[in-house]
């Protein structure tokens, strides 16, 4: 069987993502940038990229498309997505483009499109952009209105000003923190944070460029290089960022990796008491600990389909001041003070602020939560058999509370599972969680049942 196109290229509401040279080509980059330039109203567009080699090619194509549509382009160079989002608001720009494949392996790349407020596009906006892309009907400026490019080198400083207005950065200098930058954009930001505010970081994999390991923020990746170094370095905590610094994972001062699922409940526990907003927006695959935390602070959990787009659409339903925090089990969390963008650096500073406020260690804080055990698996699928698979699972587990908003989630007291089809890869994901010990029997049974429909 030949490789499916979905394995090397995906064009969707989230934007353009693929393996450069195999699926993602310069042609699509220029077309997408032209579609985005056509989609946006007047005004400049902010651009930044991650340090992958292919990001330069994407940058050149994006600039060409945007200039051709008459937009001036402000190129921030190699910066994280949150820095781009911050700069969009500061410039009152029409929008922005973030080049980089975030937590994907080195051969991947992607374009993420950001609206005028620095937020991701809504589903309706993304649909319009996709239509323009597919129609290839672009509105190009005449020769005297072609846009101009300018470089801006100090976007990180403005972004740090924003962080400094929310966190007591000088006080956080009491902590010694070791960070695995995964050769991504976080190293530039953290160095500057240390220079300006005296924060103490030990950086590993801090050279931007070739990736020393996969840049995902799983607990396994924390355990690989970061966790063993925390205690010997005498650090209070360890953090691991993905390439564009929107996701973050942790290790305790004792060098114990913390599952990425913990980032959202931890930040919810810190933020909800200080926030007027009591809603936690998360997806159906995220730990049930979130509900327990919400209950402690009189909050409420809104669960939506998996994917950034569903979270954005859900957030658009509520007034911003109603929302306490939003995020997912991947370590990507949005904090209201930063206008709802996934920001790993802001999340790290929130965790450190929490340690400061409680005057205790990360280990101690985590010990205050009940134990939940989560098991995750994946199975490649045959598209035609997916409906039958869900019918069968729903019939078999009809004794639980059934939610079919995104595949199938079934809840019992203290146990739940979620089976869904990935939006980015041709696989079925199986997630199963239980308070206390791992739900091994349920998980194994589910994997067996799903495999019967597998490719």
């Amino acid at each position, binding site marked *: 069987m030949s490789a499916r196109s979905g394995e090397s290229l995906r064009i969707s509401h989230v934007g353009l993502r693929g393996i450069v040279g195999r699926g993602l080509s310069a042609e699509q980059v220029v*077309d997408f940038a032209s579609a985005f330039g056509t989609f946006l109203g007047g005004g400049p567009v902010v651009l930044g990229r991650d340090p992958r080699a292919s990001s330069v090619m994407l940058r050149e194509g994006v600039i060409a498309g945007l200039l051709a549509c008459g937009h001036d382009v402000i190129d921030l160079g190699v910066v994280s997505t949150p820095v781009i989002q911050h700069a969009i608001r500061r410039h009152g720009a029409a929008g922005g483009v973030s080049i980089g494949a975030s937590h994907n392996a080195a*051969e991947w790349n992607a374009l993420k499109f950001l609206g005028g407020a620095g937020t991701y596009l809504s589903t309706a906006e993304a649909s319009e952009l996709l239509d323009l892309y597919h129609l290839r009907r672009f509105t190009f400026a005449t020769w005297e209105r072609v846009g101009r490019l300018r470089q801006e080198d100090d976007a990180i400083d403005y972004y740090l000003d924003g962080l400094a207005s929310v966190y007591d950065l000088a006080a956080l200098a009491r902590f010694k923190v070791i960070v695995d930058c995964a050769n991504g954009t976080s190293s530039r930001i953290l160095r500057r944070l240390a220079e300006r505010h005296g924060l103490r970081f030990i950086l590993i994999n801090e050279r931007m460029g070739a990736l020393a390991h996969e840049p995902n923020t799983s607990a396994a990746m924390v355990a690989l290089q970061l966790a063993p170094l925390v205690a010997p370095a005498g650090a209070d905590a360890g953090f691991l960022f993905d390439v564009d610094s929107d996701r973050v994972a942790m290790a305790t001062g004792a060098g114990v990796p913390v599952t990425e699922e913990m980032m959202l409940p931890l930040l919810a526990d810190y933020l909800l008491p200080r926030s007027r907003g009591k809603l936690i927006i998360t997806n159906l695959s995220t730990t049930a600990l979130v509900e327990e935390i919400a209950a402690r602070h009189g909050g409420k959990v809104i669960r939506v389909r998996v994917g950034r787009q569903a979270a954005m659409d859900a957030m658009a339903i509520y007034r911003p001041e109603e929302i306490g925090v939003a995020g997912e089990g991947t370590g990507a969390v949005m904090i209201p003070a930063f206008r709802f963008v996934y920001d790993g650096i802001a999340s790290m500073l929130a965790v450190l602020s929490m340690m400061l406020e409680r005057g205790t260690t990360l280990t101690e804080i985590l010990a205050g939560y009940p134990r939940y055990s989560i098991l995750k698996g994946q199975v490649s699928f045959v598209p035609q058999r997916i409906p039958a698979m869900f019918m069968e699972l729903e019939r078999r587990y009809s004794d639980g509370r059934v939610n079919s908003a995104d595949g199938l989630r079934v809840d019992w007291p203290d146990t739940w599972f979620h089976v869904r089809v990935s939006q980015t890869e041709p696989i079925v994901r199986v997630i199963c969680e239980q308070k206390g010990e791992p739900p091994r029997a349920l998980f194994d049974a589910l994997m067996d049942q799903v495999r019967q429909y597998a490719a």
Partner: protein
Amino acid sequence: MPREHLLKIGVSGIRGVVGPFLTPQLTRAFAQAFGTYVGPRRVVVGRDTRTSGPMLQHAVHCGLLAAGCEVTDVGVLPTPTIQFYTARCGARGGLAITASHNPPEYNALKMFNAAGLFFNHYERSELLDIYHQSAFREATNAEMRGVTRDADAPVRLHIEQVLAQMDAERIRARRFRVALDAVNGAGAVMTPHFLQHALGCELQAISIDPGKPFPRVAEPGPETLGDLARLVREQGCDIGFGQDPDGDLAVVDETGRVLDNDDVLAVAIDAVLARQRGAVVVNLTTSSAIDDIAAARGCRVYRTPVGEANVVETMLATGAVIGGEGSNGGIIYPAVQSCRDSYAGMALWLDRLAATGASVSALVEGLPRYHRRSATVGFEHGRLGPLMQKLAGRWPEAQLDRRDGLKVGFADGWIHARASNTEPLLRIAVEAKTEARAAELFTAAEQVAADPSAILGG
């Protein structure tokens, strides 16, 4: 009704009106075809000062990087400087983003091989095949190279090369008063530097701000160089140089008269042959004055179809010491490099002034005198053949050359009729020893072209 030529993709590259016609999509694809053709090595990219230049340059970079090439961005530079640096820095090829003398709404890509020369016919055909088939090389992340900037070395090395071929001391000693109109084009920064600092001229310059739009019609000529002519007269300059946006050259004499392009070339050829004997190559439509000048120096002249690539090919094959095209004043001096190079041209002119002590007008007066006429006549598609037949049949006694349209040669003059490559237009050029004979031949040729019976093949 004649079609407006808003976009042209062909063997000469890609050219069009920016916006709805010349798009970043087409440009990226063409650059990726180019990168695929020359291979995953270094490619030099530069441009003129058009507003669309940066947009197209980024599209070019995108296509080249996608094909795995390493891009050396030399920024805004005259085309000959880009060509020189392409050959000098060991690149696999070069691209200049310039529509030369076309109006500001146009832009185009010019393609050079590893020697800095225009692609020849076969190279262009192969490139076009890759473009049309979208048979692009698609580099992976691991194979991807980057963009480096190199703004200073090209100017320095090109000027050094030009000076090495001249008696620069002799030129500097004269402290020529030189006027320049650089049309705010690619020569706007380099040419003042070249004339003032490299050649020690006292410079009176206008339109040398590369950030501003073209202040006049881009093509330099008698109708468009009024400001330069005035500057020459008011400042008492020895000579005036007018450039087009990518650095091509027109010359104004000390009285403010814009010289005929054929005369600009003739003086440069005489300047070279005065120092060094060797073959001369010009196109079929260049003045017979060249034959007289070469004969006086005992040198041979080769004629080629119109087009720089044709002239250069023959120059390389014959080991010519000088060449060019009278139609555009292009001077090709292989001792500097084998392409049209206005910097070699300016230096040759100043060198000739310094060597002879004569004025510009006196040098032109000293040239063999011919009288020239030219016109452009429209024809219907499909009727070009009968029209040429009729022209050939009109003068059975004449010598015929069919290498580029039709050239009808007489003892005392010639008629050259050739179709445009881009439009159904016939260009008729006539030259003769006397004004009366030129008028006679021109009228006869025009009559044939305008005669409907000729068009019907009668």
